[in-house]
């Protein structure tokens, strides 16, 4: 394997970072012109948090949860309820009114976001405790059920004065700048990377690899499984809180099982056990979905309307691509490896060699 010089790698990383910040700066300065691109990038960043959180649980600890949408709902509703400006509330809860204790209760965005994460973690604790002692995949079943129950609770008429029932919540204050979502996503993902690389993270990996051996090393299985699950719930709740701010208005339908599948697909696409895979997967998936909108519009070629090109066709194509990825790159784009400059460098070297070998007779492009 070829290696690049260390300084080159650092330089490349710094350049990428500067380019990303510069790009955000540019987008921020021209908000109105690029609002569509900005919204795609922001949604990607938010999904990246939820995907990395899921990967920590599934790719690193070997536990499978399908409660992403439910935990995101907890974070989202916490942030929404506590940050909608007090003077707007009568307007938002115009049908049933707002509960008295909530009417003047509000928190700054940061505090509400963290509280949303904490509440999601707390609920995760109560959902996880009974099933994490059991072996195998009860966690997936329990969390899947929980996720639907949360939706039912949110929409329940008894809670109308808190969650506004099936009317949903609107007038959630937007991000104060384009940077905010990316900044928070960066911090969350960095924290999760630190956890995964700590001795706790090693214990998670050991449990995923071989529970019996992990136990023989003195690792308390239940304690570490709970820890991984609760941390994952916390960051999923944070992602939900950000999603509420991003969308400006939410209701219980926002958090259908489809949201969980979106996150799951990102994790599988990027590779179980690869954090960079999940992050890149989040951007590819979210952006890919939008690029494919092309297929939703009627297409005319020489006065002939190509069949199939109509609303919804994009999702068919999208599903086919995903199936192909899962079938042919069973381990996702990155497997359980992280993106590194060396790997990228080697990929291009191999690509170059392959192209050279295939076209030896036209070595000089100028003559073609």
């Amino acid at each position, binding site marked *: 394997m070829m290696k690049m010089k260390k300084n080159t790698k650092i330089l490349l990383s710094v350049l990428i970072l500067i380019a990303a910040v510069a790009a955000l700066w540019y987008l921020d300065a021209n908000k109105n012109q690029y609002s569509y691109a900005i919204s795609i990038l922001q949604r990607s960043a938010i999904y990246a948090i939820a995907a990395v959180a899921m990967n920590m649980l599934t790719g690193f600890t070997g536990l499978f949860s399908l409660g992403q949408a439910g935990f995101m709902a907890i974070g989202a509703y916490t942030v929404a309820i506590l940050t909608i400006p007090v003077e707007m509330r009568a307007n938002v809860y115009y049908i049933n009114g707002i509960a008295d204790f909530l009417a003047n209760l509000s928190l700054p965005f940061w505090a509400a976001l963290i509280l949303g994460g904490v509440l999601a973690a707390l609920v995760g604790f109560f959902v996880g405790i009974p099933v994490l002692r059991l072996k195998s995949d009860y966690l997936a079943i329990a969390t899947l059920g929980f996720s639907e129950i949360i939706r039912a609770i949110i929409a329940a008429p008894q809670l109308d004065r808190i969650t506004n029932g099936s009317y949903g919540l609107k007038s959630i204050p937007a991000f104060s700048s384009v940077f905010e979502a990316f900044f928070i996503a960066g911090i969350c993902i960095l924290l999760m990377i630190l956890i995964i690389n700590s001795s706790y993270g090693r214990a998670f*990996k050991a449990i995923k690899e071989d529970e019996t051996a992990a136990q023989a*090393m003195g690792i308390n299985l239940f304690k570490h499984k709970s820890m991984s699950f609760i941390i994952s719930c916390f960051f999923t709740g944070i992602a939900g809180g950000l999603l509420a701010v991003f969308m400006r208005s939410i209701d219980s339908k926002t958090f259908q099982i489809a949201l969980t599948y979106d996150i799951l697909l990102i994790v599988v696409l990027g590779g179980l056990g690869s954090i960079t895979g999940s992050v890149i997967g989040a951007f590819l998936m979210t952006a890919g979905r939008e690029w494919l909108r092309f297929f939703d519009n009627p297409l005319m070629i020489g006065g002939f309307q190509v069949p199939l090109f109509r609303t919804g066709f994009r999702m068919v194509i999208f599903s086919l691509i995903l199936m192909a990825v899962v079938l042919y790159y069973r381990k996702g784009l990155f497997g359980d490896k992280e993106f590194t400059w060396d790997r990228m460098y080697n990929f291009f070297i191999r690509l170059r060699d392959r192209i050279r070998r295939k076209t030896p007779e036209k070595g000089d492009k100028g003559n073609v």
Partner: protein
Amino acid sequence: MSNDIHLKISNLSVAYGGIQAVKDISIEVPKGKIVTLIGSNGAGKSTTLRTIAGVVKPKEGSIQFNGEEILGKSPDYIVTRGITLVPEGRRVFDNLTVLENLKIGAYVHKHRLEEDIEQVYRLFPRLKERAWQFAGTLSGGEQQMLAVGRALMSRPKMIMMDEPSLGLAPLIIKDIFNIIKTVNAEGITVLLIEQNANLALKIADHAYVMETGVITLEGTGAALLADESVKEAYLGKRKE
């Protein structure tokens, strides 16, 4: 004779569901010695070790380590008391590197990590050369070295090994037995389970023979090596 008993098992019985795997056994392991437990397949040897490690909960009996009752305690507590199990079939973490495997071994003893790693590298220079290799790609003998090295990372006072020679070539088995002697020379008590009775009895200070859940014979390693019934059943030598 030393009266310094490190591990004392009294009247231990273990059952899986209705099946009685270990029946009323008593075993003593003196401090700093090598004790081996031999016996045919299904005799209950692994069950005994797993019970000591706290992974299997026994029906009745007592297990004292350094005078402390550890029966019924959790596996992680027992590791912190100084007993580590090298499980049957090595069970290294295949998709993690040699170094990561060692670090996980130090889970209950995180301080002075570097020092402990150097110590293991000193015992097994081969592991140092292969620090960045995935454990699953090591040879069988190297994996066994790693399994022992990983166990040593928890700074055990007593190490329990479940058939470390299983599936290894004769030459490698000799290495493994040398490793056991080296570990013991560091002052660590060894409780060894072996199918390879010949080699095990040669290095053991004391030995127990187990059959269908009960101890049928005990004595010094040398005494059992000379015992006719042991010769016949475990050493493949028949009386004329």
